[in-house]
């Protein structure tokens, strides 16, 4: 296990595990509310933050956090007020975010698109001490929200209209979900990169769904998959000299394919069990006798 002897690998593994936990933990609520691509959108917006960080010589991680939180809040506001042309407004935000990032980084003294690459595709081996501190703090926030408020977030993501009638602060919870997703994007930025962040939010959840029947089990399995692929990808990239971000995402998709293949026989068994519970022959529905006249 010489891999653990290097400080940069220790930092890389810690960052990878934290991303493996947090990305599916918030991603499950995005998938539940059918906003699976929101992470992708926030990733685009975060690029403006990275660019601004370079331009103003501030920490790109914190600047990206700030800008993507603002972007996520803006997306949520557009969802409330701009129902009719909401998708167009979101598209503007996404592409504006990406173009802004490229513009700002090229305006920065000595800056070029090369600086952007490590944020677009991740740069796990260059994670610094201060990056690790930032990632730990942000990850703690994400875990606190996604576990501590799981019943409230479940209710709002399942059925917003009903959640309002249970007296839940629906708008506040929606904003919190958006902000937490934005924070997760910046946590994952150094590990898998802004363009691949969304994969870690969505694919482990989709893979877990192949096996699970309950939300709680989906959550647990998705986080387990997240941790397994981020650790596996980081270790593989160390020994094989392949880019960690891409390795992690390809492993996640591999997990999805394997679990989908495993799920087919499982689903057949469950269907058989359900068929045993139900009678196989036809019956006249309760409330109607065989001799009833039925008007059509």
């Amino acid at each position, binding site marked *: 296990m010489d891999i653990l002897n290097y400080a940069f690998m220790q930092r890389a593994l810690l960052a990878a595990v934290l991303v493996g936990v947090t990305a599916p933990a918030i991603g499950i609520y995005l998938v539940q509310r059918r906003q699976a691509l929101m992470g992708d959108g926030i990733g685009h917006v975060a690029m403006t933050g990275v660019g601004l960080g370079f331009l103003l010589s501030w920490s790109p991680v914190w600047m990206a956090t700030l800008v993507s939180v603002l972007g996520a809040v803006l997306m949520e506001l557009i969802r409330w007020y701009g129902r009719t042309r909401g998708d167009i407004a979101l598209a503007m935000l996404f592409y504006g975010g990406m173009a802004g990032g490229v513009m700002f980084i090229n305006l920065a003294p000595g800056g070029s698109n090369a600086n952007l690459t490590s944020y677009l595709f991740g740069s796990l081996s260059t994670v610094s001490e201060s990056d690790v501190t930032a990632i730990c703090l942000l990850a703690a926030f994400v875990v606190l929200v996604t576990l501590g408020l799981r019943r*409230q977030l479940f*209710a709002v993501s399942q059925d917003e209209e009903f959640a309002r*009638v*249970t007296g839940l602060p629906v708008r506040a919870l929606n904003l919190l979900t958006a902000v937490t997703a934005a924070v997760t994007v910046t946590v994952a930025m150094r590990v898998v990169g802004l363009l691949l962040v969304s994969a870690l939010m969505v694919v482990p959840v989709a893979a877990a769904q192949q096996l699970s029947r309950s939300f709680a089990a989906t959550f647990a399995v998705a986080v387990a998959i997240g941790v397994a692929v981020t650790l596996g990808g980081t270790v593989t990239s160390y020994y094989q000299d392949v880019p960690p971000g891409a390795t992690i995402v390809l492993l996640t998709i591999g997990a999805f394919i394997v679990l989908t293949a495993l799920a087919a026989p499982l689903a057949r068994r469950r269907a058989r069990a359900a068929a045993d519970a139900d009678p196989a022959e036809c019956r006249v529905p309760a*409330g109607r006798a065989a001799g009833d006249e039925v008007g059509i």
Partner: protein
Amino acid sequence: MSDEPVISLRGVRAELGARLVLRGIDLTVRRGEVVALLGANGSGKSTAVRTVIGQVPVTAGEVELFGTPRRRFRDWSRVGYVPQRTTAAGGVPATVTEVVSAGRLSRARFGVLRKADHEAVRRALDLVGMADRAKDSVNALSGGQHQRVLIARALAAEPELLIMDEPMAGVDLASQEVLAETLERQVASGTTVLLVLHELGPLEPLIDRAVVLRDGCVLHDGPPPKAVGQHALPGHDHVHPHDTSGAEPIRTGLLS
């Protein structure tokens, strides 16, 4: 106190987009009453209900719940709501118990469910005859069973007022009867009910009063109209599409 209306709408107007959907309706539901809101598609009946729960903003008029203006009303555990849905499922699998437990949040402090809350969830599932499916995924249920789960979710908070938006839409006959029985027991125990219905159907004997809307106005407020002709047949399911132009929308036998 007992005479205080549970729901009171006075001169309520509401818009969806640029379209005026409610043109000043009055609706009062008193304690223990079962009121059906009827009308063709697009007559504003769902919108009326959604102004009561605050889902649709009111442009004029007043909405009160239990004598409190809707804006200041916070006592949501007294209200059980069944939205118009054909499915209880979201983008992620969830069990019947998980979905129904969400209905108990209005009584749970900080979202923590205690033993009594879990028992209430189980009782609600018993009431709709879904206790044996408690651990199943809602994705595996039929349309009627979805509706039973949504009603159990509303009952989990043990509400005094039940608001249901087309609870019988897309529900098979066996489930319709379970739902009618469930509702009958709730009404017998003193629950007030406001129902949006496309037609009276198996719930007819329970209904004290019917309010019929057309084009966002109240057309009729009184005893429920009798169904006639084919519409009166047992098990008649009203599924044909309606002409939304409003030319002849009230040919459902409701008013004859």
